[in-house]
């Protein structure tokens, strides 16, 4: 019984990282109606970014998250201009394929540069031991950083002028343009932020588990599940749904092999899509 609780608590901590990854996907999807299939590979690049910074400088990885986020934002802006800007407003098929093309290019580059062997950020924080269970400090720190970043994004979207403009474009792009908002710039920043969040969550995930170039795919799948559960364009909803997913993973791991988890997630995903197309926090149509 306590084992289950401990496992679920650990799941809750990791769920914060899932939530952060999903927020980026949800933001882009909500603002420009583009499903970024390069999200997963940007998570993986975030992992490698943190890994290389950490091996080069050896300072606290949570401090190194900042350059990873900035690099993520810049690459997001570049990807936006190369692959996304021209397909906005075209059929959704087009943007799915163009972001997937970016995904292929980056995965190809990543495999050429770093192969598909696992890497590991060798950093650990003292854990907390309660009875027979130990919660590693890294999990607490990652969850804490994820929540801080998520709340930061939420504050940015609701309390700054630029954030309000992003929400305006998400609501109604034409109306926003009539109010004098330059939507191309807003979309660019929103995409950059989405990728920055992906990189940040990748950086945090790198401190938790060993990773490869292809690890992003699993997080991308989780992000889809979370985004669909939470409904579009609801960043805090994504964080909460991410935590729920983490709790669920924590709850099932004591009972079955970890390799079954993607199957469970997928069943959940299809059920959410078919039963709650607006998300569990969504208004009814």
């Amino acid at each position, binding site marked *: 019984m306590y084992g289950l609780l401990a496992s679920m608590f650990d799941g809750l901590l990791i769920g914060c990282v899932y939530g952060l990854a999903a927020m980026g996907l949800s933001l882009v999807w909500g603002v420009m109606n583009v499903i970024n299939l390069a999200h997963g590979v940007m998570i993986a690049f975030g992992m490698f970014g943190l890994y290389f910074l950490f091996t080069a400088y050896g300072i606290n990885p949570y401090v190194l998250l900042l350059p990873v986020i900035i690099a993520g934002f810049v690459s997001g802006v570049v990807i936006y201009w190369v692959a996304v800007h021209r397909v906005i407003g075209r059929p*959704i*098929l087009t943007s799915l394929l*163009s972001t997937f093309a970016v995904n292929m290019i980056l*995965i190809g580059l990543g495999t050429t540069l770093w192969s598909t062997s696992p890497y590991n950020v060798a950093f650990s924080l003292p854990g907390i031991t309660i009875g027979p269970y130990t919660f590693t400090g890294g999990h607490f720190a990652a969850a804490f950083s994820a929540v801080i970043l998520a709340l930061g994004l939420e504050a940015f979207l609701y309390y700054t002028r630029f954030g309000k403009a992003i929400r305006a474009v998400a609501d109604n792009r034409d109306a926003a343009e009539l109010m004098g908002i330059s939507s191309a710039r807003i979309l660019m920043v929103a995409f950059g932020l989405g990728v920055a969040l992906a990189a940040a969550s990748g950086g945090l995930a790198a401190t938790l588990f060993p990773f490869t170039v292809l690890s992003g795919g699993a997080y991308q*799948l989780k992000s889809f599940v979370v985004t669909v559960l939470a409904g579009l364009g609801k960043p805090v909803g994504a964080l909460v749904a991410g935590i729920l997913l983490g709790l669920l993973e924590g709850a099932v791991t004591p009972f079955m092999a970890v390799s079954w988890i993607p*199957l469970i997630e*997928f069943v959940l995903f299809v059920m959410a899509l078919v039963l709650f197309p607006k998300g569990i926090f969504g208004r009814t149509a």
Partner: protein
Amino acid sequence: MLKRPFFWVIVSITLAFAILPLATGDANLRESLIIVAVAIALASNVNLMIGYTGYVNFGNVIFYGLGGYIGLYLTTVRGWPLIAAAIVAGVVVSVFTLVFGMSILRLRGAYFGLATIGVLEAMRTFVSNFNPWGRASGMYVPMDAYQSLGGPMRAVWISYLLIVAVMGSSLLLSLFIKNSKFGLGLFAIREDEDAAGVLGVNATFYKAVVYSVSAFLPAVAGAIIFFKNGMIDPGGAFDLTLSIEAIVMMLLGGRGTVTGAAIGAALYEQLRGYLLTSESLSNFHLVIAGGLLLIIILFAPEGLVGGFYRLLPRARRVFE
């Protein structure tokens, strides 16, 4: 059908595929043609979903992989003859896809695309954990399984001819659907699903049927190819890259046309063969494929055949 010139083009290409390596006995030619034939079969069937209906199916390789698994299970464990096993594999995968499609195809556009990625991951997870199919290490064909076809050498040739038949059937199927009322319904869904519904096209049913039809021949091809290769494992059978390559081939040639899928597949395989054999570029072929996909999507959404039609409008009547 018989009056359409393109019908005879397909028949003669298929015959050429069958006769050329047989007449020369050239094993290298056979091996490169079989890859092209499989690519054409996969790309044509992806075209039914993406080109005709406008629904991205990122998980199209599932049909191929699952067909391979069922075929290998039937031939090696149950001792069935190859042709029966391949056809049963096709039927099982089609029925499974139809049932699954009825529920999942209520999803529109992008949501369906996402779901197909999920299906692929879920299927790989399932097969990697499924004991009767050898879990992560997969299954092997014992040498004596080839005896019923007259030894390994003959089995390879028979597999080749069967694959060529699958390729020809895929092209004919694409041609047939394109000129049928069913095909018109699919085009209507692609252009505007709501309007199609108002005009009496039962969109969910049509989509589920085409999803299921597009599963049959790839599953048959999978059963034959993995039998010929002698082994199957989850990574090779459910490879997202192969799914995407089928899409790239189809888009390269031109979506929604029978010719386009075939030409795109043949060209892409040539390109990939070159990239894989040149040492420094072998890891790089994903980058090239991705770059190609991006360029087509952004600048030439109609593909090669689309451009060809614009140069020679009359060609549209022959090369459908």
